[in-house]
Structures are given as C-alpha cells and as structure tokens.
C-alpha cells in the first residue's frame, strides 16, 4: 500500500490533464450554449471558429516574436490573444450580417440555420488551411513547466513524479477568470440581463424595448471571444492542427447538451464532466492499482485512447435518453 504515490499518480495522470482539457471544453461549450440560447441553433462552425482564431493568434505570435516581444515565462500567445479575438469577431460579425441575419429575419427553421453554419464551417476551415496550412504547429514559448517531475521528486522524495505545465496552469487560471467575468456580466450588467431576457422569452424582451440585433451582435462577440480563447489554450496545451478542431466539436456539443443547451452554468459543468469521464475511461489504471497493493494482470484500461470520442457520445446518448433537457434544465425540447 502506497497511498501517497497513488494519489500523486492520480493527480498527475488524471486530475491535472482532465481539468485543463475540461476547462477548454467548458469555454467551447459556453460559446455553443450562448449561441443556442440567443440564436436558437447548434453552431457547427464553432470548432472551426476556434481553429480560425487560434491560427490568427499563431500568426500574430510569430509577428511579435519576430520583433522581439515576449512575456518572459508566459507564452507570447497571451499578448496576441486579444488581437486574434478582435479579428475573428469582425469576421464572425460579417458572417452574421451576410449569412445568418437573412434566415433570422425570415424566422427559418433551426435546421436551416444549422445547414448555413455548415457552409460557414467549410469557408472558415478552408481559410484556416489557406493561411496556416494543415501541419501540426507548436507555438508555446516561455517556460514549459511550473513544476517539473524532477523538482517534485526532489522536494517530496516520492518515487512518483508530478508535473504541471505552464499551459495547463494557464488554462485553468484563464478559464476561471473568463467564467467569473462572464457570469458577472450576465447577472449584473444591463446588457447581460438583456441577453438573458432575450434568451428566456424573445417576444417579451422585444416588448420591453430590447434591441434584438444588439443582443445578437453581443452574443456573437462573446461567443467568439470564448471560442478563440478556448482554441488558443487547446493549441498551447496540445499543439495546433486544423482537423483536431473539427473533432473537438463532438465533445463540445456533448458538454453543452449534458449541461442543458442554453444554460451557461451547465456548459461549464458539462465540459468538466465530459473531460473527466474521457480521461478516466481511457487511462490505464494499472500503476495506481499496483500502488494500492493489487497485482493487476492487464492494463486496467477500459477503452483505448482512440475511442475517447465514444465516451462523449455515450454521455450524450445517456443524457438524451434520460434527461433530454440536460442536467441543469436547459431550453425545452
């Protein structure tokens, strides 16, 4: 029995990676859920918005590096992030003006808006490939580790090491700050209250003099800011590759639905639920079982890592079967 080492191993291989992945999913799902709440459709272009924004951030980062600006131990991408958000938001507002507004004013069925978002997805995907290519890109500069395995071992004298990368810590801090700011905005500010009112009851909101176009613009800007932040953090953490952002769409949708589409708090919870289940199911538990005094035969891995998307799918199906409005009661069916 070696409980301390087992705990450290769980922390190192399960809790920290799942927490930072969950934070990235939560940011993505927040964007999906906000768009769903206000514009009432599932935005298939969200993954590619993340990719597009992250690609712009990478380009700006390269520019900053070329003229010698850096943030010391923190990645330079943090300085580039606001610029990336601004540029992406301009593009997204453009798509709203050119594409979505027409269907909104016609009150088309949500599925038509979903189709239109597929068209936008194609364009953004192509643009991202055009400006940055399809190769894997690492753009995390600055210090790599906050705590490295050797340091941790030297401090504690345990055999099991623990590492905390700067990108992981940064993800958690940035997500916490963003969520705090977002919820404060939604609950306290006039504009945020207008958004919630519009989401709850469109007609009533119109009657009380809320400008719908303003609410919609605000929603796109906030959702884009969340998406670009999520995309950049995901890229810093795992490296940037266009196709990965298409694949992350499924866990993000799963997170948003688990939490209840249209419910921001639910989206955050959903992100962590999906991430923790994914990591817990695909992690080989053999090492931890050994520390706890068992002698397992196999790897004790429930599913191989290639099937991590199956986890979000199963969670999605279970929620759809038993509680279609999500754990936190999102919009009704």
């Amino acid at each position, binding site marked *: 029995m070696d409980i301390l080492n087992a705990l450290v191993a769980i922390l190192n291989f399960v809790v920290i990676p799942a927490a930072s992945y969950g934070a990235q999913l939560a940011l993505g799902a927040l964007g999906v859920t906000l768009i769903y709440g206000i514009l009432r459709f599932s935005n298939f272009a969200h993954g590619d918005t993340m990719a597009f924004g992250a690609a712009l951030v990478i380009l700006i980062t390269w520019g900053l590096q070329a003229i010698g600006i850096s943030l010391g131990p923190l990645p330079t991408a943090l300085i580039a992030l606001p610029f990336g958000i601004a540029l992406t938001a301009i593009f997204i507002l453009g798509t709203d003006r050119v594409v979505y507004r027409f269907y909104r004013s016609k009150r088309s069925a*949500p*599925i*038509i808006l*979903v189709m239109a978002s597929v068209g936008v997805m194609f364009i953004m995907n*192509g643009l991202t*490939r055009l400006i940055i290519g399809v190769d894997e890109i690492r753009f995390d500069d600055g210090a790599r580790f906050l705590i490295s395995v050797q340091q941790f071992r030297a401090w504690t004298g345990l055999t099991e090491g623990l590492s905390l990368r700067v990108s992981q810590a940064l993800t958690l801090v940035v997500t916490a700050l963003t969520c705090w700011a977002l919820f404060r905005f939604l609950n306290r500010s006039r504009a945020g209250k207008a958004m919630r009112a519009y989401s709850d009851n469109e007609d009533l909101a119109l009657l009380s003099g809320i400008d719908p176009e303003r609410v919609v613009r605000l929603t796109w800007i906030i959702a884009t800011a969340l998406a670009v932040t999520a995309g950049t953090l995901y890229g810093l953490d795992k490296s940037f590759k266009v196709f990965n952002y298409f694949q992350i769409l499924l866990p993000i949708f799963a997170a948003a*639905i688990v939490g209840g589409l249209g419910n921001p708090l639910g989206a955050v919870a959903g992100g962590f639920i999906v991430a923790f289940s994914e990591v817990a199911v695909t992690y080989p538990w053999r090492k931890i079982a050994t520390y706890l005094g068992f002698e397992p035969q196999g790897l004790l891995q429930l599913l191989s890592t290639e*099937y991590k*998307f199956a986890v979000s799918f199963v969670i999605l199906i279970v929620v759809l*079967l038993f509680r279609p409005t999500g754990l936190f009661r999102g919009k009704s069916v």
Partner: protein
Amino acid sequence: MSNTRQAEAVSPWRAPLLFLILAALFLAEGSFRNALFSGSWNTALAILNMGLISAVMALGVNMQWGYAGLFNAGVVGFLALGGLAPVLVSTAPVQGAWAAGGPRVILALLVGLGTLALAAQVWKRLSGAWRVPALIAVLVAGFVLYRWLFDPAVMAIEANNSARAGNIGGLGWPVLLSWPVGALFAAVAAWGVGKVALGLRSDYLAIATLGIGEIIVAVMRNEEWLSRGVKNVSGIPRPVPYELDLQGNPDFVARAAEWGMSPAVASGIWVKLLYAGLFGAVLLALILLAELALKSPWGRMMRAIRDNETAAEAMGKDVTRRHLQIFVIGSAVIGLAGAMMVTLDGLLSPTSFNPLRYTFLIWVMVIVGGSGNNWGAALGAILIWFLWIKAEVWGPEFMRLVTGPMPDGALRSHLLGSAPHMRFIALGVVLLLMLRFAPRGLVPEK
C-alpha cells in the same frame, strides 16, 4: 421552410437541359486535351463512376433531408459501415483466423448486445431504489464479461499471419451479394441512433449522427481484426473482369485494334464502362423505386409530415415512427453506396473516410441538385463530383492566373501551394449561395 417548398412553375425542360450540359462536360473531358480537360476517356469514366456512386449517396441523403427534413451529419459513418460488407462477405477466408477466435468474438459481441438489452429491460421493469444500482451492476458485469471474452480472441486473430492478414477475413461469396449486406449494416446502425435521437429537437439528431459517424470510422481504423485498420484491406474481388486478363485475351486485343486503341487503354475503358453500367442500373432502379414511393400514399404522408409536423400529428400520423423509417431507409442507401465504392476501389482504406469529403460534400450535392427531387439529387451529385475533381486542376491554374502579376516570392508560392484548400472555401460559398438564393436547388421538387 414551408413557403420555400411551394411548387412554382418550373420549365419541364430544365432537368433534361441540365443533364445534357452535364453530358457535354463529360464528353469534353474525354475528347479535348487542354488546360481545362484531360482528354482521356479513362479519366472521364473514372470521374463518372465515382459520380454515380455519389449520386446513390445523395439519394440516401435526399430521402432523409428532402422527404423528411432530417439532418444526418454522420453520412461518412454509414458509408464506412457499408464499405465493411465487401470485406466481410466477399474477400477470401483467412487461413486459421476463424479457428483462432471467430466464435469467441461473435460470442463477445452477442454478450455486449445482450448486456445493453438486459440493461434496457432492467430499467423498464424495475422501479424504486433498486433501479439504478441494478442497472449499474448489469452494465459492469456485462462489460467485464465482454472484455474477458473479446480481448484474447482479438489478440489471437491479429496474431494470425499478422503481416499479410491479421483480420477475420471474409466468406468468399460473390461481391455483388455484399451490396445489400452493406445496406443492412448501415440500416441496423441507423435504427440504433434513430431510436435514441429522433423525436427530440431536430439538431439533436445532427449531433448524435455526427458522433456515430466519428465512432464508426474510429472503430474501422482501430479494430485490426475486423478491417485491418491502417494496414488496409486490398484485393477485394470484382464483379467485372480484370484489365490484365482482358489484355491477355486475343479476342479482346483484336477488337481493340479494330477500334484503333492500344489494349491497355481499351481494357481500362471497357472495365470502367462495365462498372458504369452496373452503377447506373443500381442508380436508376433506386430512383424508380424512390419516385414510385414518393407518388404513393406513403410518399404523400411523408411530405405532409415534413411540411407541417403538427398538422400531420393531429391527423393521427406517428411522426417519430415515420422519421425512424425514412432515416433507416436513407442510411441503408448510403450503406449500399459505401459497398459499391469499396468494390470499385478494390480496397478498404479506413483512414480515407474523412467527414468533410464524405458527409458534407454529399450534403452540398443534395442542396445544389434540389432537395426533395431524386433526379435533382443525382444531377447535383454527378455535377459537384465532376467540379470537385476538376477543381484540383483548375484551382492551381486559376491561382497562377490571378497571381501572375505578382513578383515571385514567399507569398506567391504560399498562395500557389495552398490552392487545393480553396476547394473547401468554394464549396462553402456554393452551399451558402444555394441556400440563400435558390433553396430549392437546380432541379426543384415538383
């Protein structure tokens, strides 16, 4: 949506004219050799064959979207599942694979399915405090038993001659038999997804099918005992003769000489023509069946449901059930197309199933062709496929023309190098333009 579907007077000559233009494009591809066209009949027919298969896929998507308004975002998954059928049905049996673990794998899969069924029963029959613990107990026990049966069997099969086989192999039956089997595979998967996701919000089906598509492709990539994963399954038998056999046949060589062609070119063209005949026959038969169905009372009911679900429900129609029915039928057609595609390629390459190419491109075909109209969907499929293939040549040509005045440098070479990605942008633009300005497509629904 309903007001865009209202029948408007469309010239009856529109569809034949568009098909004529399409035919002219293929003739040009086959006979002219310049910057735009290849001038090779082999190329033209190769594009046509894949275009015909795309048309079958588009028919399936059109049944789901055009007849019922269901958004299937997992076309690639049903296609891949259909593509598995030729491997399992018609490739030669692998020596020793079945003995190594065949029955045990089947038993494991049955245990897996049985667990799910039992869990569903437990959930339905029990109530009160025992419901959740019993459900979890059934699932955990089932999963442990499944893995205990499954893992050693898979190891044994994959260890069997792993360099050349390592998979369960096929039955060695005729390949045409595998086409309906492919449809069946896809139909079963569609039934499972549809059972869960239909009857909820319309976007939920889109998200659930997106998920099942990803998972099916992941299974094909990773389950080497089934599909050899990244190692690909090649040598899938053909329903038509091989080029090399034709070239060795003196009668055929004499016939080719009569036409003034070398045996190599003539054999390629002949094989492709045979395929085109086969695929064309399947396509026409499907269109015929679909048109008959659409004109029957059943078809009228489907359209009534699509145009106004509430009214149809008030008339006593079981909307969810009809949706499930059409979703399964449409997916079966997609599975059939998958089996046809793998037969044409003679190769199952699980890594090539890309959702952008096999889900969303098919969607663009249907929207461009005319959702709700089978001829329109077929036309859109062949046209978009032709343009998709030719854009590979035309894109860089166009880019060279546009960037001509620019000085040679990093930007120009970057733009020239990334010209192939322009296809995605062009596709998105086409989709958006059609949705906005001609939502009924090139050949609108009657």
